[in-house]
C-alpha cells in the first residue's frame, strides 16, 4: 500500500506542477480536473470517502464542467485578455524560492507535529448516539456544528447572488442549432442518464445518515443531473425567476432555521433537537438542504437566477 500511496502522491504533485506551468489554458483546465479526481482517490485512502464524493462531484465534476464552458467563452473572445506583461525573471525566481521555502517548512511541520488525541472529534464520536444519525460527518454538520452549515449555505447563496448580479450567463444553444454537428446520441445519453442520476443523488442524501453521502454530496449529484439537462438543451438559464424556484433556493436555510427556532422553547437553545425526534428532523433538514444546494450549484453553472424548460 505504501508504494501505491507514494505513486499517487507523486502523480498529484506532478499534475499540480503541470497545471500551473503549462502554457495552454485548455491543458491547464484538463489537468486541474484530473488532479481533482486523483485527490478524491487519495482521500478514499485516508478514510475520508465522504470527502472523496464531494471532491469528485463538486471540486472536479461540477467545477470542471464550469471551467470547460468558461474556457470556450474566454477562447472565443480572442487572445487579448488585457493581461499584464509576464513577470520578470526576478519575480519568477523570488516566487520559486518563496514557494520552495513554504513547501519545505510545511512538510517539516507536518512530519514533526504531534497530534493531540484530546480533541473535539473524540467528543463527537462518543456522543454519536445522541445525534440521531450514525454517520459521524453528517452528525457534525447537521447537529453538533449546525451553525457552520447554516452560515455556509448563506455563503453559497451570496456567491449565487453575486454571480447573477454580474449578468454574464453561460448560454448553451439547443442541440439542433449547434451547426448540425451534434450527435444524435447526446439526447440518448441525457434521457437515460438523467433519471438515474436523480435517483443516485436522492440515494446519497438518504444514505448520508449511515454511510458516506449527505446533503452536499447528494445535492452536487442532483445539480449534475440539472447540468446534464442544460448541456442536452432541455433546460436553460432564464432572467425570469419563478416564485417556486426562489422558494426552493431558500428552502434549506428556512427549514434549518425554522426548526431550530421552533424547538427553542422546548430545548432551551437554538438548533437543539429533542431526543426522540432527532432522526426525522435530520432527514427533513437533509433533504431540504440537498434541494437548495443542488439548485444553487446548478444556477451557479448557468449564471442566471431562473430556469426555463426549453430554451429558445
Amino acid at each position: 500500500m505504501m508504494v501505491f500511496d507514494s505513486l499517487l502522491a507523486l502523480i498529484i504533485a506532478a499534475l499540480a506542477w503541470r497545471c500551473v506551468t503549462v502554457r495552454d489554458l485548455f491543458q491547464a483546465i484538463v489537468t486541474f480536473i484530473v488532479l481533482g479526481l486523483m485527490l478524491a482517490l487519495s482521500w478514499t485512502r485516508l478514510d475520508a470517502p465522504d470527502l472523496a464524493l464531494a471532491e469528485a462531484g463538486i471540486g472536479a465534476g461540477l467545477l470542471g464542467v464550469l471551467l470547460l464552458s468558461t474556457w470556450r467563452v474566454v477562447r472565443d473572445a480572442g487572445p487579448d485578455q488585457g493581461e499584464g506583461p509576464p513577470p520578470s525573471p526576478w519575480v519568477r525566481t523570488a516566487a520559486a524560492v518563496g514557494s520552495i521555502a513554504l513547501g519545505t517548512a510545511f512538510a517539516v511541520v507536518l512530519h514533526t507535529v504531534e497530534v493531540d488525541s484530546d480533541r473535539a472529534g473524540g467528543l463527537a464520536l462518543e456522543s454519536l448516539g445522541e445525534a440521531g444519525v450514525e454517520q459521524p460527518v453528517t452528525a457534525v454538520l447537521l447537529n453538533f456544528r449546525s451553525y457552520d452549515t447554516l452560515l455556509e449555505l448563506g455563503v453559497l447563496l451570496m456567491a449565487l447572488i453575486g454571480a447573477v448580479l454580474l449578468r454574464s450567463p453561460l448560454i448553451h444553444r439547443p442541440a439542433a442549432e449547434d451547426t448540425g454537428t451534434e450527435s444524435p446520441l447526446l439526447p440518448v445519453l441525457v434521457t437515460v442518464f438523467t433519471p438515474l442520476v436523480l435517483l443516485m443523488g436522492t440515494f446519497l442524501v438518504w444514505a448520508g445518515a449511515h454511510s458516506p453521502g449527505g446533503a452536499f454530496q447528494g445535492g452536487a449529484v442532483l445539480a449534475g443531473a440539472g447540468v446534464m439537462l442544460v448541456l442536452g438543451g432541455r433546460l436553460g438559464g432564464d432572467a425570469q425567476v419563478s416564485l417556486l424556484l426562489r422558494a426552493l433556493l431558500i428552502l434549506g436555510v428556512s427549514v434549518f432555521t425554522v426548526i431550530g427556532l421552533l424547538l427553542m422553547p422546548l430545548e432551551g437553545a437554538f438548533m437543539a433537537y429533542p431526543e426522540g425526534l432527532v432522526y426525522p428532523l435530520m432527514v427533513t433538514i437533509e433533504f431540504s438542504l440537498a434541494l437548495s444546494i443542488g439548485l444553487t450549484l446548478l444556477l451557479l453553472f448557468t449564471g442566471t437566477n431562473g430556469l426555463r424548460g426549453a430554451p429558445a
Partner: protein
Amino acid sequence: MTAFLTLAALVLLLLFALGLVRMALGPTRADRIQAVQLSGTTTVGILLLLSEALAMPALVHVALVFVLFAALIAVAFVRHPRSQE
C-alpha cells in the same frame, strides 16, 4: 487476496500514469480530454478493487459518482456556450 487486490490497484495506477503521458503529448484537444475519460475508467477500476481490499463497500458509490461526472465533462467539452444573447 487483499495483497493481490492491492497489487492490481497499483498496476492500474501505474498504467494510468503512463496514459497521462498521452495527455501531455497531445497533440489535439481530443487527446487531452481523453485523459479525463482515462482517469474516469481507471479510477473506477481502482475504487472497485479498493472497496474489496479495504472492506469499504461505500467506495462503489464513489465509483458511480466518478462515472457520472466523467461523462458530464466529455459532454461539456463538445457543447459550446455563449455568454451573450
